Each structure stands twice: as structure tokens, then as C-alpha cells.
């Protein structure tokens, strides 16, 4: 089932789309001319869907090397008069920060939308960063999607508004919106027909201080006009009685759970008559006139928003300016961390409305809590056959050998890692990740640690992440003589986000051939003397090379090459090629269990789990999960040679 087909159904059809697919369709309906992005959960599927449709509908798409460049490509499209989109995960906006802060002064020609996919609850991100603040700081109007049913229309409108207002616009979604699905009625697709054209306007496109001072005043004026315009957009809407005891101002993804919570309370207590709802789609700039009228019509105000008190604080300032005596409630009742659930909001609403909470003493809740205590968490781990496992395992063996030989310091390795699947090297039994916090930081912090601590530094970073933000810190290691080892995990794809191409792959987003940039050649050109390429199936080679690199005096880079096994095997299967899998020879196996305990491959399991007291480990390989890397047969894992290729 190709999901792109659903996005393309005829106008008027009701189809099932995820929020991200609906956003992609919305951009199609608004005649998008250019889409440039760096993949990042939960934003990826928007661009991924558009990539599949670009040729048919005559617009440009690319996976860019990082969010900053993606934004600059989008800005170029806008300056050229095209409608432009760039999509990224919430923390990716940090990387795109500088071009957007500057371009905000200059204003758009073609509409420009930055899709910011935030992640309340940290489902797949390292912070819960609330980018509504970024919008306000950079003077970018923020349209916040409140449900996947409105996602399509809001995406289309965002491109139109951006052009009308002359300002780049942020379309803010969250994991919950992007990864939820619903029935959506499709509109007409507008095939983009604009031709890019550069209008030479030096006082507009050259952001020198003299121009910047003038443009800043123009920017403030522009935002003031947008502030008036947002009073009348349909996404800012009011529902409920004409006046009420309470006014709830609900922003973004909190809308669904909040409305469900109200309906749970409504049955017995006529809650709907007590509460007037303002569904707020523009947390910046606020529709102040409409909000004033709303606040005048209610006795008490509660702001319902996820994460930070962004709207609440602005309303507090507004109320102060207008001399209101009404208290603006918000985070005094509502959690600042994670997503807002129906249950949590039912609790909040029952308190403010002085009603009994239907979830208090809930048996279901008690049951849920009691079960969590008994069940170990099923944490994500590296896939069976993943080349990253070989590398982390080899690092551990190399470290032990060096410590035994009293080489490479007495304190072992410090192992900074980076953003990607390999972060999962953190999990036992590999336990080979000591720091992890942002793109490229594995090598960056290593070049710092090298000056401050005695341990050997072994950084791990993926290929796509290396191209994104890993090249400057390698240069810094060379420049500032930092004695580090960096292992670049080259699996020939951006695996974590679903296998997008990167500059080392040799093909573009649209599948056209391009130069496959050699990572080894890049690091040599950056001035690294010690550069080795090793295949991830070669455990002995990995162990020896890591020992050599750590012992080398100066920056060393190992490119560990092995394709993402999931992608590679999928291609083999499609081509009808048999995958060589492995099994455990019961006659040779001494039932020591070492393979499972030190290598931790999820294709392995232990028979007779219920006899925990048994010292015997009858380990087996699940042939339907084995991806056939064969590394578990290495002598350091099974010295009895009991792991054999499966012959069937």
C-alpha cells in the first residue's frame, strides 16, 4: 500500500490520512513550488509524501544536508517567487534559527512555511522545546494545528497567509497531530505554474545594518497588521453559549483531549452551558480584539495549552494593559510537562467547575498503575544484524584489551555518541554511550574532553549526522590538536527516520543519480592523517583498528561501513535473493549463554525461560528475526564455533 496514493485521491473524496499526510496534501492544494527539508521525527512523512509526488505535479523537492541549508533553499524559492516549504522536527528549528531570524526582517515574495513538528512527551526527541517562543522571538506568525482534521486546510492556508502577510509563517504541529489519522475530505490540487525569477532589490535582499534598521521598523509594522488580520481567520473560532461562567482558551493539540474531557463531564452536569470555548490557532500574534471580546463575555478564564505558559503569559500582559481584574488561569491548574491527556484535563476541569472527577478512584487507572510495576519496559534496541552492534561490541573488546595491556590510559574510554539509531548503543549489554545531546556533538565534545580528561575518547556518529553537523568538529580536532578517535557509522542511509538518502548515497530525494561523496576522502581533506575504512561484519578488523586508532597520536577516524540491514534485506527480498541466516548447533553449544548475554541480538532467545534457576542457557536463533550478519559467530562471542550458517 503506497500511502502517496491516498494523498492523491480525487477532490471531494473522504480518505483516511495521518496528520502529516494531510499537511502534505494541503501544500499540494496550495500550489507548493519547492520543498526542502532534513528528516526528523515527527515531521519526516510530510516531505517524504511530497517527494513521491514532486515530478507529477511539477514542483521541486530535496532532502537537504541539514535544516539550515534546507531553510536557505526555501528562502531562495521564496525570493524567486515560488511558494516554499521546509519541514523539520522541533529541535531542528535550532539549526534553522539564523536564516529565519534574518529572513524575517526581509519578508517573503512567494509564501514560505516552516513546518515545526514539536514533541511534547519526548516520544523521539531530546527536549520538549516549545517553538511558539521561537516564532515570537523571530517575528514569525505561528499557526498551530489543533486536530489532524484541520491539518490539511491549515497547511494550505499557511502558504496563502504567508504571501498575503509578506512574512514567513510557522505551521506548528506535534507528534500527536502528525502521527494521528482521521477521515479528511480532499480539495482541488493546484498545480504550481510559477517560474522562478530573481528581482534585483539590493535594499531588500541585502541585510546590511543600514537596511536592517529600516527593515526592523517595517517588520514591527507588518506584525501589527498581522495581529489585526488573525482576528478574522476561520481557524480562530469560538463555540458554546454567548456568555458563560468560564471561558476556556484552548491552544493547539490540547483541543481534542479538552473537548473530550468536557463531553465526559457534560452528561450529568450540563457543562457545556457553563463553558465558552475559544479555539486558538494563532498563539503568535494573538488575535487580541477577538480575545478581548471573548474575555468580556465570561466570568473566569482558563488557558489550556501544552508545555509552556506561552499564551497565558501574553494574556496576562494584555489583561494588565487593559486593566482587567479577572484572573487568567492556566499553569496553576495544568501540567507543564508532556502531552495533555483527556484524563488529566477532566481532572482539571472538574476542579475549576467544582464537579466530581469521574477518573477519581478509577479502577482502570489502578489496574494500569499496578501492571506497570510488574512489567519491565520494552525499550527500543538495535535491530538484529545491525552493524552498529558490531562497532559498539568491538569498542568494548578493544577497551578491555587496551586496559589489560596498560595502553590508552587507565580509566578506559569515554564514548560520546550522537543523534540516530546508534544512540541505542546505550542499552545493555553494549552500554557504550556516555554522552548524547545534539547533532554533531559526539565529535564536538570529544574535541573538548581531549583537553580536560585523561581517558581515550571514542566518538560514534552516523553518516547522515556526520554530513549534517559532524564535519566542523572533525576540523576542530585537527585545528586544535585534539587527540580523539571518531567512528563514523556509515550505513549508507538516514536510517532512524526511515531511510532517506544523504550526500554519501549517490542519489537524490527524487531518485536521480548524483555524486556519492566519500566520507574517508572528506575527513582526509579536513586534515585527518589516520583514516581507515572497515566493514562492520569484520569484528576482528574493527577491534584491531579501534585499538590502533586509539593508540595513534592525533585525531583518528574510522569509517565503519555496512548497509542498514533492514533496508538491505528488504531490497534482497524484493529481488528474490535468499538471505543467509544462522542457527545454533546444539551439539557444539555448551549452553554457556555468553552469546545472548554479551551481544544482545534480538534474534536470539533462551529456551525454558520459566526455569530461571537453571544454569543452562539453551540459546536459539529465531530464523524469522535473524538478519544474517553472522557476526555472532565471532570467536570472542562463541569460542565453541556453535553458530553456523543455516542451510535450508
Amino acid at each position, binding site marked *: *500500500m503506497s500511502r502517496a496514493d491516498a494523498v492523491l485521491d480525487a477532490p471531494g473524496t*473522504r*480518505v*483516511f490520512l495521518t496528520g502529516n499526510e494531510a499537511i502534505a496534501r494541503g501544500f499540494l492544494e496550495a500550489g507548493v513550488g519547492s520543498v526542502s527539508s532534513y528528516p526528523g*521525527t*515527527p515531521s519526516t512523512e510530510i516531505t517524504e509524501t511530497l517527494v513521491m509526488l514532486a515530478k507529477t505535479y511539477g514542483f521541486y523537492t530535496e532532502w537537504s544536508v541539514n535544516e539550515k541549508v534546507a531553510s536557505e533553499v526555501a528562502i531562495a524559492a521564496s525570493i524567486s517567487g515560488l511558494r516554499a516549504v521546509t519541514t523539520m522536527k522541533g529541535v531542528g528549528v535550532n539549526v534553522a534559527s539564523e536564516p529565519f531570524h534574518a529572513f524575517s526582517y526581509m519578508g517573503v515574495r512567494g509564501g514560505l512555511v516552516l513546518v515545526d513538528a514539536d514533541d511534547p512527551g519526548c*516520544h*523521539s526527541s531530546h527536549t520538549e522545546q516549545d517553538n511558539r517562543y521561537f516564532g515570537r522571538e523571530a517575528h514569525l506568525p505561528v499557526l498551530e494545528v489543533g486536530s489532524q482534521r484541520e491539518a490539511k486546510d491549515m497547511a494550505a492556508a499557511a502558504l496563502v497567509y504567508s504571501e498575503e502577510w509578506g512574512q514567513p509563517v510557522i505551521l506548528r504541529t506535534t*507528534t*500527536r497531530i502528525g*502521527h*494521528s*489519522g*482521521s*477521515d479528511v*475530505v480532499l480539495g482541488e490540487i493546484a498545480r504550481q505554474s510559477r517560474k522562478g525569477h530573481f528581482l534585483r532589490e539590493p535594499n531588500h535582499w541585502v541585510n546590511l545594518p543600514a537596511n536592517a534598521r529600516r527593515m526592523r521598523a517595517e517588520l514591527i509594522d507588518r506584525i501589527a497588521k498581522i495581529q489585526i488580520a488573525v482576528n478574522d481567520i476561520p481557524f480562530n473560532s469560538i463555540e458554546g453559549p454567548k456568555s458563560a461562567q468560564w471561558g476556556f482558551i484552548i491552544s493547539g493539540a490540547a*483541543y*481534542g*483531549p479538552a*473537548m*473530550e474531557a468536557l*463531553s*465526559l463531564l457534560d452528561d450529568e452536569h450540563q457543562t457545556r452551558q457553563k463553558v465558552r470555548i475559544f479555539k486558538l490557532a494563532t498563539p503568535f500574534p494573538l488575535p487580541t480584539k477577538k480575545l478581548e471580546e471573548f474575555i468580556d463575555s465570561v466570568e473566569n478564564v482558563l488557558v489550556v495549552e501544552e508545555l509552556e505558559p506561552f499564551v497565558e503569559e501574553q494574556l496576562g500582559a494584555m489583561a494588565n494593559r487593559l486593566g482587567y481584574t479577572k484572573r487568567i488561569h492556566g499553569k496553576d491548574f495544568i501540567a507543564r510537562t508532556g502531552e495533555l*491527556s*483527556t484524563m488529566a484535563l*477532566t481532572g482539571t476541569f472538574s476542579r475549576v467547575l467544582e464537579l466530581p472527577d469521574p*477518573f477519581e478512584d*478509577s*479502577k*482502570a*487507572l489502578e*489496574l*494500569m*498503575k499496578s*501492571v*506497570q510495576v510488574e*512489567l*519491565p*519496559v*520494552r*525499550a*527500543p*534496541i538495535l*535491530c538484529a544484524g545491525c552493524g552498529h552492534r558490531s562497532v559498539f561490541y568491538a569498542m568494548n573488546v578493544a577497551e578491555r584489551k587496551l586496559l589489560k595491556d596498560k595502553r590508552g590510559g587507565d580509566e578506559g574510554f569515554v564514548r560520546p555518541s550522537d543523534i540516530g539509531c546508534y544512540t541505542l548503543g546505550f*542499552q*545493555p*549489554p553494549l552500554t557504550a554511550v556516555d554522552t548524547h545531546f545534539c547533532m554533531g556533538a559526539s565529535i564536538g565534545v570529544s574535541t573538548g574532553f581531549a583537553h580536560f580528561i585523561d581517558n581515550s575518547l571514542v566518538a560514534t556518529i552516523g553518516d547522515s549526522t556526520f554530513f549534517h553537523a559532524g564535519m566542523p568538529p572533525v576540523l576542530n580536532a585537527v585545528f586544535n590538536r585534539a587527540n580523539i578517535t571518531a567512528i563514523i557509522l556509515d550505513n549508507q542511509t538516514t536510517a532512524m527516520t526511515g531511510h532517506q538518502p544523504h550526500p554519501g548515497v549517490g542519489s537524490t530525494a527524487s531518485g536521480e543519480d548524483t555524486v556519492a561523496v566519500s566520507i574517508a576522502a572528506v575527513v582526509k581533506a579536513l586534515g585527518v592523517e589516520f583514516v581507515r575504512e572497515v566493514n562492520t561484519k569484520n569484528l576482528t578488523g574493527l577491534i584491531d583498528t579501534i585499538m590502533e586508532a586509539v593508540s595513534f597520536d592525533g585525531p583518528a577516524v574510522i569509517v565503519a561501513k555496512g548497509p542498514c540491514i*533492514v533496508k538491505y534485506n528488504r531490497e534482497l527480498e524484493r529481488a528474490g535473493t535468499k538471505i543467509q541466516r544462522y542457527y545454533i548447533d546444539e551439539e557444539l553449544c555448551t549452553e554457556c*549463554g555468553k552469546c*545472548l*548475554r554479551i551481544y*544482545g*541480538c*534480538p534474534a536470539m*532467545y*533462551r529456551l525454558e*525461560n*520459566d526455569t*530461571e534457576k537453571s544454569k543452562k542457557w539453551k540459546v536459539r536463533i529465531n530464523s*524469522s528475526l535473524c538478519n544474517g550478519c553472522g557476526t555472532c559467530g565471532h570467536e570472542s562471542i562463541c569460542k565453541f564455533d556453535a553458530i553456523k550458517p543455516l542451510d535450508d
Partner: protein
Amino acid sequence: MVDESKVEVNYDIVIAGMGGQGSILASYLLAEAALIDKLPVLSTGDYGMAQRGGMVTTHLRLGSSARSQKIPVGCADLMIGCAPSEALRNIGFLHEGAAVVLDTLVHIPIPVYIDKKLTYPTFDEIKARFDTSFEKVYAIDASTIAQEFGNPRIMNTVLLGASLALGTIPISRAAMMEALESKLRADLVQINIDAFERGEEEMIKLL
């Protein structure tokens, strides 16, 4: 567009499994079938790191009064447990009269093998836990059946067939068949229909 006679229908399903089992695809298929039957549908999944064997939970809400993407605690009508232990983890989403359909194969996470302090429930323990709270608990050997079919990935379709055979999901069999036929890769349609029918048979034996 939406069948007005069905706007009062409300049916909430939790599908609990782990990355790679196809529980998200199962939810898509149910959603497509619901659409064919002109039912409003809302779904959501927690699957940020699903590929790598982590927990995957999908919520599917059929009917127009659902507003929140996630099913509130204690409100779901049906649990489809692609991984029994993950079903147990989500037990609190079910209301007292809910039905539970479980595969019988327990997948033990790697850390349980490594950390001696950790233990993991067997299938019988998991089923017993459901039995104490719910009357309608059905164990289906879906993984074993899928192995017999020669394709472990159709385990989810066996469970779909078993679940639909309960007769409580407001989706017609015809719509479900149409969804299987129109939304799966052509060469996988027949094996999935066979798996679906086998799931139905297994459930009928239990009813």
C-alpha cells in the same frame, strides 16, 4: 459522506504490540474499512522508535463523538494484543465489559536475559491477569498459525479476523475484505484473506 445513522456509534480499539509486527498496518486496514462503511474514524499511535522492537500502541476510535486521539483510560471496547505483555501494559484503557484478543507468543525483551533482577510473565500469567478483570478474553495462536502459513508477518491479520468474528466491531465483513483487497500489495492479498478467515474460524471455535 458520513452515514448519519451511524453518528451515534462509538467503538474504541487498542492494538498493542512491538515494532515490526504490523500493528500500525492493522490499524490502517481497520480505518480504511471503517471509511468504506462511512464511519468517522480517528487513530493515533505511539511509535517514535518502533522499527527497533520497542512498544507500539495504536488507538482506533470509530464514531463521531470521539474528540481526543487517544482513548481515555477505562473507555476502550476491545484490545487486540499482538504482543501479550504489551496488551497487559495497556490493560487500563479497557472498560469492564471489554473484550480481549491475545496472540499467545510472549516476546521477552533482551534486558530481561541480562539483568538477573528482572522477571517476565509467561502467557498463562498474562492471561490469568486479564481473566481476573474481564470475562471475554480470547487466546489465539496467531503467531503459530502465521508460521504455518509460511509468513510470520500475517500474524496481525489472523488477529484481525479473530477480532472481527466477535461481532462487536461496527465494521462489516464486506468492508474489511474490500480494505484487504484494495490496500495491500497485490501479491499479499490472498494470503492475508486466508489468514483473516483462519482467524475468524479460530474465534468461532472459542465462542
